[in-house]
Structure formats: C-alpha cells, structure tokens
C-alpha cells in the first residue's frame, strides 16, 4: 500500500467515524477543536517568536481546515470571525485586551475575515467538486459493473446457444448415422432370410440379428424423442388427428414387429379428433403394446381401448399377464423418471419405454397411469385433453 493510499484510508476512516455523530454537534465540535488547536499553537509560537507574530496565519489555516471539515459556509465564517477576535485579543499588543486603536488593526481584522470567507467559499466549492467527482466515479463504476455483467450474460447465452446447436447437430447425426445402418442391417437380414439359401441354424441367428436391429431402431427413436422433449428445446409439432387412426397405425406397426402376438383395437362410438403430435402418440402406444407383449407373459389377450371420458380422450392398454409389481405402479404414480427405477435385467428396456411415454404425455398436458386390473393383468392408461370441436 502506498503512502497516499494509506493517508486516504485514514482520512476515510476519520471521515466515517465523524459522520456517525449528528451534523450540528459534529460541526460545532470540529470548529471548537480547531480553534483551540490554533489557539494553543499560537500560544506556543508566541513564546518563541515574541512580538513577531504569526497567529493570524495559524488561525486562517484553522479556518481553512474547519470549512473543509464542516458542512456549509456558516462554521467557516464563524471560525474566521472568532479567529480574528482571538488574534486581536490574545496575540496582539495589548495582550488579553480587545483593541482597534492601533493603525492597521481594523484593516487586518477585516482582511482576515475576508480571506477566511474567500477560503471558506473556495473549500466549499472544492468539496462540492470532490463530491461530484465521487458521484461520477460511483456511476462509472456501476456502469462498468453492469457492462461486465451484460458481457457475462452475453457470453453465457452465446455458449448456451452454441451448446444447443451442438446438441441438435448430435441428435441429427445420431438419428441419421444410427438409423441408416440399422435399416440396412435389418433389411439385409430380411433379404437373406427370404432368400432360402441359409441353413436352419443360421436362420435362427439371422432372425436374432433382424429382431435386435429392429428393436435398436425403436430404441433410437425413443432416445431421440425423450431427448427432444426433456430438453424442451424443440416445441411439439402438434396438429389435429383422429386418435383411432393413430392407434390403428400403432397396432399395425406392432403387429409387423411381433407377428405372433394378438392385439385388439377396441373403438368407441366417440369421434376422438384432437390436437397432438401423432408420431409421438403413436410411439407411446407402440411402447405400451410392446411392453405388454414382452413383459406381461401373455401375448394373446392384449387390448387397446379408446374412449372419451369427460374432456379426455383416453387410451387404455390391457393385458392378462402377470400384472405389474408394486414398484412399477409406484414409480409411474410418482411421476418421476422411470429409467432409474427399472434398470434391472428383467425389465430391460421397459424403463426407458415407459419413461418416454411419461415424458411425451406430460408434454401433451395429459395424464398417465398404471395399475393392475381386478381380473388380473396390467392396465396402462393415458389421457389427452380434448378441446371441443364443433360438430360438422
């Protein structure tokens, strides 16, 4: 710390301490203190210098300091008058008596008051300017800080958007770079399967290759959807759709993948025409059907039921299998992401499938529920809100 900094720190400390006292007593105290100091100094000086007396200068100095340290002109002027009298009274011949009889005395007194006043006015101005400078400095500092903050925010936003671009690029890359080879793996496997040139042993293996490639395709689609929705970066591409057509398509897709399973689509008389992103809703239904086929232990009695309940278009998937474990029911009910709860081997793929369903339905402002039917088997149900469309 340099000397000037130390001084300025000391000055500021004194200044702060002093400003703890209310203005009037403070100003009076400062005035009295400096006048006393001036008096003492003058007394000491006069002992050394005798008749050659500098007390007027000492008092002017005191007045300067007083006007510097007090607020307004008043104390400075008061001090100058008092100082002038003191000089006259104590330190000029005749000592300890007030006298204007000597030539030059009144003039000296007047000029001292005048000088004090001028100095006082000047210091006040300096103080004002100093205050102004401090204010400006503060403002500049505030501006600088704000600028700094804005800069930081700007960088953060730029980083964020860069990250989002990277993420969507990765998504696109994943979707293209995984889907295309998987399509060709599955396609090549099915060409070989239908060629009739493969031995029975190898046929089973080829069948596995094709099935795994197909389920990987589904998995990629699921991951893409869940990333898209959880990010919230891409809004849903909703449009009005007939729910039965979406459900029908989902059943057809499921049947193509699991030709030996039986899935029944149960329509109601209600016409369920509502706003949704059809490919995502189809994905939900496909996931639920696939879960029923793969995990319920019963492929024969899977039903998909569509109906209207108040202002909800409800889709229900029932099986007659072994039902859901309490953990799964609880996990679905709690609405927290399922992937962590269902990571066991027995439920491989179920967690992510249900997780995707949950996220998609949530993004559609719908409800998602799971439970066991009293007749046995699991029931998954989701509802989508219906706006009222005027009938034809």
């Amino acid at each position, binding site marked *: 710390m340099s000397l000037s900094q130390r001084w300025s720190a000391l000055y500021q400390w004194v200044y702060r301490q002093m400003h703890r006292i209310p203005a009037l007593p403070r100003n009076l105290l400062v005035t009295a203190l400096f006048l006393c100091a001036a008096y003492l100094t003058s007394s000491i000086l006069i002992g050394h210098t005798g008749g050659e007396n500098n007390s007027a200068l000492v008092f002017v100095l005191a007045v300067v300091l007083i006007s510097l340290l007090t607020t307004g002109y008043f104390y400075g002027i008061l001090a100058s008058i008092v100082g002038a009298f003191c000089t006259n009274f104590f330190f000029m011949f005749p000592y300890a008596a007030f006298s204007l009889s000597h030539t030059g005395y009144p003039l000296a007194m007047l000029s001292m008051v005048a000088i004090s006043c001028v100095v006082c006015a000047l210091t006040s101005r300096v103080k004002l300017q100093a205050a102004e400078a401090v204010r400006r400095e503060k403002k500049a500092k505030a501006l600088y800080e704000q600028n700094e903050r804005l800069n930081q925010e700007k960088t953060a936003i730029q980083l964020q958007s860069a990250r989002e671009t990277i993420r969507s690029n990765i998504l696109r890359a994943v979707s293209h770079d995984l889907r295309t080879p998987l399509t060709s793996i599955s396609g090549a496997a*099915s060409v070989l399967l*239908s060629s009739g040139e493969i031995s029975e042993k190898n046929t089973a293996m080829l069948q596995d290759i094709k099935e795994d490639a197909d389920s990987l395709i589904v998995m990629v689609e699921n991951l893409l959807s869940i990333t898209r929705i959880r990010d919230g970066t891409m809004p849903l591409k909703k*449009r009005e759709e007939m729910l*039965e057509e979406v459900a029908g398509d989902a*059943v057809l897709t499921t049947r193509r993948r699991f030709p030996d399973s039986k899935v029944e689509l149960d*329509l109601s008389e209600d016409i369920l025409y509502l706003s949704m992103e059809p490919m995502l809703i189809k994905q939900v239904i496909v996931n639920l059907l696939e879960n029923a086929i793969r995990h319920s232990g019963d492929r024969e009695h899977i039903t998909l039921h569509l109906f209207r309940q108040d202002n909800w278009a409800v889709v229900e998937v029932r099986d007659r299998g072994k039902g859901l474990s309490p953990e799964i029911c609880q996990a679905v009910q709690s609405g927290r992401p399922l992937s962590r709860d269902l990571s066991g081997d027995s439920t491989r793929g179920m967690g992510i499938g249900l997780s995707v369903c949950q996220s998609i339905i949530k993004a559609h402002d719908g409800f998602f529920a799971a439970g066991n039917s009293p007749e046995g088997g699991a029931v998954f149900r989701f509802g989508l809100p219906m706006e009222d469309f005027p009938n034809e």
Partner: protein
Amino acid sequence: MSEKRTILVIEDEHAISNFICRALSASDYKPLAAASGKEGLSLFFSHGPDLVLLDLGLPDMDGLEVLSQLRGLPREVPVIIISARDRESEKVKALDMGADDYVVKPFGVSELLARIRTTLRRADRMKINEGIQRDVYQVKDLTVDIAKHQVLQGGEEIHFTQNEFKILELLAIHAGKVLTYDFILEHVWGPYGGSSNQILRVNMANIRRKLKENPSAPKYIYTELGIGYRMLED
C-alpha cells in the same frame, strides 16, 4: 412375364441401395443403382426403367427436383419415394407432385416389395384402360357402383351421405394409390370449398363405422398417418 422389369434405385446410402437391389433381384426384377440425382437421371434416360425408387435426401440435388424432372417427361413412369420419418411435409409434397407411393425409413423388405408390386400393377392397368373410367369398383366384398351411386357390402346396401360417397368413389377410382388429404378435399369439396381437414377426417371416421372397418385391421381403406388414405386394390 418373359422379360424382367427394370427398377431404378436412386439412393445415396450404399448399404441401403445394396440390400434393396438384392431384394429386387431375388424377386425377379432387374435393379439399377444410382448414388446421386444426376446419375439417376442419366440412367433413367439410357435405360428407360419401369419404376423408380427415389430417396428424397440426395447429396447433389433435391429429390423433389429429380421428381419434377421425371414428371416433366411425356412417358409417365411410376415413382416410389423413400424418405425419412421426420420429413412428412416433403412426402406430401412429393405425392402432390405426382409420386405414386412412398416408404419410410426404416422400412421392411416385404413392405417395399408389396408397394412395388401394387404400383406396377396400377401402372399397367392405367396403360390398358387409358381414358376409360369404370363404373363398378370391387374390393373384397365391397362394391362401389359409381353409375348407380350405390355401395354394397356383402351384397347388402349401405347408405352413405353425399360426401361420404364421393370420398369412397374417389378412393375407389384411385385404388392402390395414396391420396393426400388436400387431394381428397379438393376433389370432394371443390378447390374453393374452404373445407377443413376435420370435415374429411370426421367423414372418414363415419365411413369406417358404417363399414365396420377397424383401422388396426383395415379391409378396404388404409390410413397413411399424416398424409392421407389409400383404398386397397381389387
């Protein structure tokens, strides 16, 4: 048929093009592979294929551009679009530009072959019946009699409203082909009908209920999600 029919496959993904060609040769077609739009067009002019499989995502030019060049020719060769799942509007555009059908990646071989068979058959029939409009269309047990304005299912007449009948008629005339929502709307309600998609969809739901048609096991009318409808061929 004595001579093998030629199918031009315009697809830039080598692996996909490869298995499609294998599947085509296995089904007694003669495949021709092109990896870019330009190569595809030049192969088209040099070999005159019977059908074109066209991927919309090509490296050198827009697949739709290739389609419009093919459609600008006097000889109408059927085109089946191969497209990615998330590019629906492109598919609809391609169909409205005159593509005959589409398959979505990832697609199965059997699905692709079925589409090719249907499209080729339709094209043949169009050639034979050029200009002649039939009066009666038959799909399984469903008869759409345009002259008599009558629909029979299993010999029993089913009553449809005017617009429902018009939709059925339109689908029957173009049986086997995907008709986009816009195409149906324009032909049934007129170009300035100001009609919404909803009217069409609700009409279709009613037709389905009258025919006891379940969309998960369609007997007559297939739903092409987000695109339109297609009536099964005779």
